[in-house]
Structure formats: C-alpha cells, structure tokens
C-alpha cells in the first residue's frame, strides 16, 4: 500500500502502525455518514455517496419538412401529368420535363439533408445516453453496495438484539438477586436492631 524510496522509512513497521490506527477507526467509526455505522465493534461497510445524475441533453426534433416534400412531389406529379385539357394521347408532348426533374432533384436533396440530420441526431443520442447508462450502472452498483450494507446491518442488528436480550436477562437476574439480598439484609437489620430480651 505504501510506496517510497525515502531512506530511514521502514515500510513494514509503518504498515503495522497503519493497521493499528485503522483498527481504531473500525472500532470507533468516523464522523458524518460513518457516524451512522458507529456501533460497538461495527463491521459495517462504508456508505458510498452516489454522484449526481448527468445532465440530460435535450435535443431538438429533426424537422422532416414533410409538407414541403409533399408539395414538391405533388407539383412534380402535375408537371409529369401535363395539362388535363390536352387530349391524353398528346399529353406526353406537353410534359414539363425540366421542372419535373428539378423538383425531383430538390426532393431527393431535401431527403438526403433530413437523413443526414437524423443520422447526426442518432449519434448525439447515443453519446448522451452513454453517460446516463454509465450512471445507471453506477446506480446499480451503489444499490448493490446499499444492499450489502443493509445485509451487514441486519446481521449486526440481529447480533445486537441477541446481546440486548442476553443483557436484559442478566439484568433481571441481577435485579432478582439484589431483591433477595435486600430482603434478607432487611431481616438481618431488623434482628440487629431488636433489643436483646435477655438483658
């Protein structure tokens, strides 16, 4: 546990002293939270304090631009269909191919942009979930250590309860003994103070 190259320091001897001092701590407990564990010969593990939860990053929703996309697609459809007053067989000569192509390209670009935004948002979500996850894992560990503490405390309470019952029994026994001794002493006392009839 101790690492040093300073001359004249005997690590073994020092470790022995550390053990003695630490034993005093184990029997005496600490202050603060550890005061809770300060019982006679307590072996309760230390209570660990959980760090605060990480701040949750509130991400803005991705705007899918659905209406704009629908509008563009409707317009492209119209440009592809051509004028309804023109007879069907001639309509293909009146399709607005240039406008249709532009709208199609714009729609694909818009979709691409939205997809990129979504991908970025997914990455951000993963990153922000990571510390939350870590904290939850820590919480689980702390929870487990609390459970261990409570188990140890239960054990200790049981022992203490037994000791208390034992002490109570001893106390009652002593009480009885004292009472018995008291009454016999009282009798002796009465006898001692009674005048001697023979005199």
């Amino acid at each position, binding site marked *: 546990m*101790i690492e040093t*190259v300073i001359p004249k320091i005997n690590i073994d001897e020092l470790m022995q002293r550390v053990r003695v001092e*630490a034993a*005093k*701590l184990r029997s005496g407990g*600490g*202050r603060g*939270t550890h005061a809770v564990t300060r019982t006679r010969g307590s072996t309760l593990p230390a209570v660990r304090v959980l760090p605060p939860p990480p701040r949750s990053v509130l991400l803005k929703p991705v705007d899918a631009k659905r209406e704009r996309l629908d509008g563009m697609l409707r317009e492209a459809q119209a440009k592809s269909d051509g004028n309804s007053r023109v007879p069907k067989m001639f309509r293909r000569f009146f399709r607005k191919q240039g406008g249709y192509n532009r709208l199609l390209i714009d729609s694909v670009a818009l979709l691409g942009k939205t997809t990129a935004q979504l991908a970025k948002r997914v990455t951000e979500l993963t990153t922000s979930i990571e510390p939350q996850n870590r904290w939850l894992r820590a919480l689980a560990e702390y929870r487990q250590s609390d459970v261990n503490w409570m188990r140890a405390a239960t054990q200790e309470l049981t022992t203490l309860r037994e000791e208390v019952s034992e002490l109570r029994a001893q106390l009652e026994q002593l009480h009885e003994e004292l009472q018995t001794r008291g009454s016999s002493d009282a009798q002796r006392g009465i006898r001692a103070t009674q005048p001697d009839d023979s005199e």
Partner: protein
Amino acid sequence: MRIAIVIPWFGREIKGGAEQQAWQIAARLAQRKHEVEVLTTCCRSHQDDWETNHLPAGHVVEPEGFGVRRFPVEERDRQGFDRACGNLLSMPVEALVPGSSPVPAEEAEVFVDELIKSAALLDFLRAKKSDYDWFVLMPYLYGPVLRGTEIVAERAALQPCLHDEAYAYLPQVADAFRRAKKILFNSEGERELALRLYGPTVWEKSAVVGEGVEPEPIAAASEPVDPGYGRYVLYLGRKDAGKNVDLLVRAFSRFRAVRPNSDLRLVLAGHGAVDLDGAAPAAVDVGLVSEEHKQALLLNCLALAQPSRNESFSRVMMEAWSVGKPVAVHSECLATAVAVQECGGGWAAASEGQWAALFAQLDRLSQRELALLGERGREYAELTSDWDKVMDRYEKILGPPKSTLKSTLSGPPIVKTASRAVTINQFLPNLEYGDAISNNAIWIRDTLREFGFSSDIYVRYIDPRVEHECRVFSPDALHASSAIIYHHSVGTEITPHVLQYAGPKCLIYHNITPPEFFEMYAPDYAKVLRAGREELRSLASQFRISYGASAYNAHELGDMGFAEPAVLPICVSPEKWDVAPDPELMQELGDGRTNLLFVGRVAPNKRQDELVEAFSHYLALDPTARLILVGKAQENDPYDEHLHALIRTLRLEDSVVMPGSIPQEQLAAYYRSAHLFWSASEHEGFCVPLIEAMWFDVPVLAFASSAIPETLGEAAFMYTEKQNLRDVAALAHIVATDGVLRRNIVRAQRNRRAAFLPREVAPQLALLADKLGTLATSQA
C-alpha cells in the same frame, strides 16, 4: 571585497554573543585581506543607556586591521518603547503565530524605532550603500539592523542570531528577512526556525555559516585536573530564568527522588544564582569559574546539559563536543536540538519528566557509550565550528554575486551567439493569474530574454491580473515571429493558425485530462477533451520539436506519433512566495487544529470527493482536524455540486474549507499552516502544488498515479491502494503527527524540489531555444 558589519553595539570588551561574534568576523575577514568596516553607534553596550553617547563619533582602525565607524545615538520614546516591549514580553510562546503580529501595528513600529536610534547611521547607509559589496547586519531585532536592511536590501547579508521569541514575530522582522539579499545563520536549527517563521524564500538565499569556537590550548596540553565532583552532569552559563536552569534543577531533584542512591551529581557553573530546590548536596552551584576551572569541569563531566530554549547557537555545546562530551539539549530549541539530531551527539528533552528520565538514562550509560556519543559530537563540532571553515563559508556566500541565469549554466554557452537575433514568441489560449502553465510561460519568456532572445507571450483570453505580462493573439504577431513555442491545450482557436505557421515551431504538452473522468459530470466537456486528444494526434506531423512537462507527458506525445519528444519540466521557484502571508488567515489557521491541505482546481480527476470521504474517517483519530481544498470551481459545475452535497451528507461543513481561487497571500498562509499535503488525484501531467508544498516543508502524501511518482521523485511517499479509505486516513494521520517521519519526508523533499529551480531547468530551456534559434537562422 569591501564589507561593512552593521551592529548597534561594538567593542573588544563587550561580552554579548553577537558582539563577540561580530568582532571575530571582522578580524578574520580583515586577516583574509578584505576591507572591513564596522558601522555601529556611540553607545557602549546593550547594558548601558541607549540614549547616551559614551564613545566618540568617528572612524578608528583597530590593530586587527579593520575600521570602526561610530555614529551618535539620539533621544527616543522610552515610555512608548517600554509599553510595547512589556506587551511583547507578556505574550506566552504558545500564543505566537508565525505571520501574525503579536502586537498592534503602531506598537510594533514603536518597538522597532524607539529601541536604539541613530539617524546618522541610517543616513550613512543611504549615502554610501554602493560603496560596499556587502553589509552584514546583526543581530536581527534592533532598529538600525531592521531599517538598515531596508536601505541596503540589495547588498544586505542579514545575520539574525534568531531566537524563538515574541520579537521574531514582528512584521518588520519578517520584512527584513524578505528584503535581505542573503541570510547567514549560525546553526541549522536557527535556519529551521527562520523557515518556520518566514517561509520558503529563506532557503535559497541563506546559508549556515556556523560560528567558530577556539579550542583552549590548556585542554590539549595538560593532564585534566579532576575538580573532585565524581560522576556529574555539567551546566555552564548564566543561571537566569531565560536559560531554563530552574527546569534542570527540578528535573534533577525528581531524578534523585526516584534514585536516592545514585552517585550522579549536577554541577552548575557561571554567573547568577539558582535555588537548588532541595537538590543539594547532590546538585552544586560553583558560581563563576576561571577558564582553567571551566576546562577541568568540561573534561571530567559525563555530559553537558543545555536546557535553554532560546539559542541561535550554543557555544558551550560546541565546547563540550570539541572535548568529546555528549550534550543534552531542550528539544524545543531548534538551534541545539537540530544539531544534536544531525550528529547524534547527545539527547533532547522538553518536559521536567523527560529531563528526569534523561538523567536516569545518563546514570545507566557506560563510559564507552558516552564516549561514542561524544565522539559523534566532536566530529560535528570540528566541521561546523572551526573558524577557518566558518570563514570559508562567509567568503563563499559573500563571493561575487551570480546575477544572471547565464552564469549558472556550466561550460561554454549553450545558446549560440548567431541565434540570438531571433524572436521566439509563445502562443497559448489564455493567461491566468496563479495558473501553473501561465506562470511557466512567463518564466520561459523571462529566461529567453535573459539568454538574449526577443520574446513575448500571445494569448486569446487574458486575466486582467496578468494583462501586463502578455499581448493579445493576432495572426500577424504569429507570422512576425522567427520561431514559436506553442503550449497545447484543448479547444483552442489558435491551433489552426499555429499549424499554418511555416517557421520553426515547438509544442509543449501539459497533458489533457482523459475524458472518462468528466463523462459522468460534464459530458459536453468530455467531448471537448476527447476532441483535444484526437487533435493532438493530428499535430504530430506538424511539429518537429516537441516537449512534455514530464516524462509521462512526453511518453504520451510519443504514443500520439510525435518524433522524439523531450522533457522540459515546469520551473518552480520559491521566489514566487516572496509575499507576506495573510495575517488574519495565519491567525485563524494557527488555532492548534491540524490543517490537511490539497491545492488544485475542483475537477473529478483530482478526486476531492475521495479526500472528503477519507477525511471523514480521519476525524475519528483527530476530531478537530480541518481539510482545506484550495482551487477554482466552475460555476454550477456538477462535480462541485456533488462535492458540496457529499460534505453536507457527511456532516463535515465545519471541518472542510473550500476557499476557491485565492490570492497569493492567502495561498501562502494555507501552505505555511499546513501539516500535510494530501492528494488523491488520479490524473496529473505534472502537479505544481506538490513542489510548492515541498518548498513550504509540508510533507506530501499522494496517491501514486499518472505523473505524480515522477514529480515526487526520490521524495515520493505515496499510497497505491484506495479500496480501504480507513487505511489511507490512518496513514495520513501518522504522517501528520509523527515528527520523525515528517522530518524524513521533508528532508527528501528538500533535495527533490531543487530539481525544479531555474538553475536546473534553464539549461534544458537553453537547448530548446538553441534548436529553434538555429532552425530560424538557417531558414532566414
């Protein structure tokens, strides 16, 4: 050399320790062909009226070859002085706190200025200060010495003859220690006392010159005459309360009460009288004795007892050692106790019981064991109190001053003359007051200028407290530089500009904290840290020259792809602490509670939370202890909030102090009052506070992580496991309270801290500057 010795009273016949010493120094320096003049007053001696001019003013030359120039004394405010002095003398030693004046400021002024006054002497110093190479001013507590040091500060060699007494705690005395260019001590213990009272700046400018003791010829020549007291312990000297003789007699009586049949006696010789308190006839007061009788007493005693607490050097101790007799001293008198501890030539005791036990121990020891101890003392005395060696030390410390760093570089100049026309500028994101990297950049700039380069610091963000130290970053300034040094840190906007710079450039890496530490508390900052580390990898091909502040950092640079990174440690000089510590804080912290200190910004990698937790265990061993966590915390920082919550949960609000970012005077007060520097940090690229703590002689206990073992070097005293914080707390308690362990750690730290002094780091910087300079010249 032309040397002036400034002393309030001077004369061949004066019996005072400092006056006799001054005479010896003057005579012996003159003998070594130095031009020596003693500047003193016309007042005859300390025992005479300080307003009377007993001797004529003017200049005379003594037969020993040195001059004496006397100046008239003048009227003084006797009432005011007596009042101030009375108040000072009534202060119990236990109530004195270093850095905190024992009397109000006005009273302290009156004490210093109305003790013995000679305006003519001070005027002479003002007018002639450049006519002498050095002014040796002694002893410390008189107006002409304290005010004189102020006047001739740049050439002042203060020889304080310091005692642990109320006068030594006056702010004017502390100021004289700070101002003096050199400090000359009579003993190692005296220097220890000065370090405790005035802080780390004393160390670098001081030297222990010692004081010579001339062996009496009769001792060596003739057979020792037995004075006829049998087996006895000897006390030699004045028998007044200040010398603690009463304690010695009481302890001897106590010893005799336990061992009535012992034949051990106590013999007291010297001026004054003492109540033998029923210790007679085993204890005997032989009064003032002749020199021959004194020698006989010394040669026939078992040991010498020196129970005084107020000594800056004990002449009788050296005399006893020089004839091979062991010495018992008071363990609270640093001057004597440190000497005994250094050489092992005797024992130290403090209380009456300890002194009584010491008599018992002495009674049991064989002649051979006593002779062994005495021999150790004799060797020490030979080394420290031989006049020739003492005068060699004076000449060494008062030799020609080494004014520049260049002169500290050994061998031929490392930086080539041709390189010196170049401008080497430094670039870093910000310059902050008290920040280790900022201080390092300032030191690099100053040293480069001393080497003859032109050099400035350019930063993006400036702390107003250091705005005079730097300039605002601009790409023009960058491109106008012949060569640059770039201090790499995270998220800086100047990095792209630096990358575009085509001239010779060097990167200094102070390390980037691993992001894992921050993920739980500040995920955004963790991202920045991660990006910073990634960015570092991309810089590897851009910098042909790279340095880490430690081998740990340099190793990381190597891992990132930098070619042959070297090490340029951070320079930590005690000169930085040439400030008076905050007196109120010193008073507050000197309340007898144990002060456990950690200095570092509030950050998860520093593990202040773990310190707090371990400290909650520590309190069971020392319930009044105080944990001080100095360091800046970001506003609304989740880790800081967690730390405060932890302190509340553990109910430690009264025991944990978190003063935040504080001025130098307050930080000095915390370091000065600390009993232990305790670090649980899990990541450091260098850790300047460890070296700072070393300068304040605070033992360091640190968790062995990252660069910490390297920074602590041969002074490392670390723990390697943290699973059981009770064990760590127990270890901290042992270090904070065990005097011997503390001394061993501090001794190692005193060696280690020297590795970061300017004189050690400057040659490494010179190599770096040389590389840059040569490249710049060849490119031009």
